[in-house]
């Protein structure tokens, strides 16, 4: 009898700890430059807001590669799992809202694969065509353009089997 009570107390405690722990683990960060918060779990869903690199969100649920999340401002919507990471994003000190850190630590945070490394490689090899890369990056397909393109082309706005 005593053993069962002990076991019951242990299980209840463990359940409480796991719930608290699971809640703490549900924080994730945006790992891309900007992420559109969607009204539906689809890239063709209505855009509610745009989240910035490093923004933290609370995960409410997960289904088929999409997280239902809540922003710090209380807005709920969907983000694809590839837009989020469990890792903490460390910013450079020049970035607004950044975390201060030692200079060497900041270099390591980017592992050298960053804007400074790009400037270094560009200075050593001026033939590298970064201007063309900048131009191609400026081409964006807006949501309404994509929707119209798909509609006109008779494509599916959602998977159809």
């Amino acid at each position: 009898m005593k053993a069962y009570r002990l076991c019951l107390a242990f299980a209840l405690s463990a359940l409480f700890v796991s719930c608290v722990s699971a809640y703490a683990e549900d924080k994730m960060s945006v790992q891309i430059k900007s992420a559109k918060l969607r009204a539906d779990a689809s890239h063709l869903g209505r855009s509610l807001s745009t989240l910035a690199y490093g923004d933290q969100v609370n995960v409410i649920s997960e289904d088929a590669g999409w997280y239902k999340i809540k922003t710090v401002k209380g807005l709920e919507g969907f983000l694809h799992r590839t837009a989020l990471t469990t890792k903490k994003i460390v910013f450079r000190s020049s970035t607004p809202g950044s975390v201060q850190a030692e200079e060497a630590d900041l270099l390591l945070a980017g592992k050298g694969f960053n804007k400074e490394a790009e400037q270094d490689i560009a200075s050593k090899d001026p033939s590298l065509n970064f201007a063309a890369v900048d131009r191609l990056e400026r081409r964006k397909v807006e949501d309404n353009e994509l929707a119209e393109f798909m509609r006109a082309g008779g494509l599916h706005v959602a998977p159809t089997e």
Partner: protein
Amino acid sequence: MWRLQNRLLCIALCGAVGCSYITERNVKNLGSRILSLIPGYTLFEAFEAGKNVSNSRAGLTEEEEYYLGRAVAARIMSIYPPLEDAELNSYLNKVAAVAVAFSDRPETFEGYHVQALDTNEVNSLSTPGGFLFVTRGLLQILQDEDTLAAVLAHEIGHVQTRHGMKAIDEKNISQVLSLAGKTASALNCSELGQQLALAFRGSVDDVFNFLEKGYSRDQEFEADAQAIDILGPSGYDASALITALEQLSLAGANQSKRWLSSHPATADRIARVQEAQKGTAFIPSSRAPRVERFQKVMGQIGHAAKTH
């Protein structure tokens, strides 16, 4: 009876505890915490044990992959000049955006971008981070929008499986990781920056040389499979991938060998695509609405092109 109830309650609660805690993300997080306690396993690597970066090469983040991809893209466009045709590039980006919306990796750090290259050579390329390229020579032999979508979906397949990232030599990665294990006091910042820049340049060389040499057959099969998974639900005809492979194969006989080896349109590859398509239940939409716009855009390619 009372004992049995307690026993069942204990079992149920223990089960609930186990189930609530053992989610994939929690396991990975727990793993990263344990690893972070190991001397030499730095915080950065510990972070990378999280779910969404677990398949990155050596724990590089989306941002780091993006900068690597940018540099490789800059090198590609230093050899093959971009074809500056606004309508064509806009069209290519729209077709790619459709495919991206149905891919398993729709988000990269700065998104996916497509650029036409002004060369007669027949090929398509992709770099880490989502920079896609199609040559004028390839565009001129493609049959319609669905075959173009198949080519782009194949390249997106390479990006989402991070094939390019896997080309980075261990020596560059180990250099970065060993540096990441040192503290600010162990190295001065200048030395650290120089060594990391060296690793970056080495990694760019690795990926670029790999693209020149070509993907492995297994990687091509994998990208083909990804393309079928993308095309089916989008409404594009997945069988267009076979047409594209046949057209590439035919064109290959008269083309430069540079980069073409990355697309050996073997009978094996086509057979595998045919086999994979048997398992798909998606019904493609009619190609008719897409034919006219494809022909309109492709018909104007020559106007902006300078032959290379």
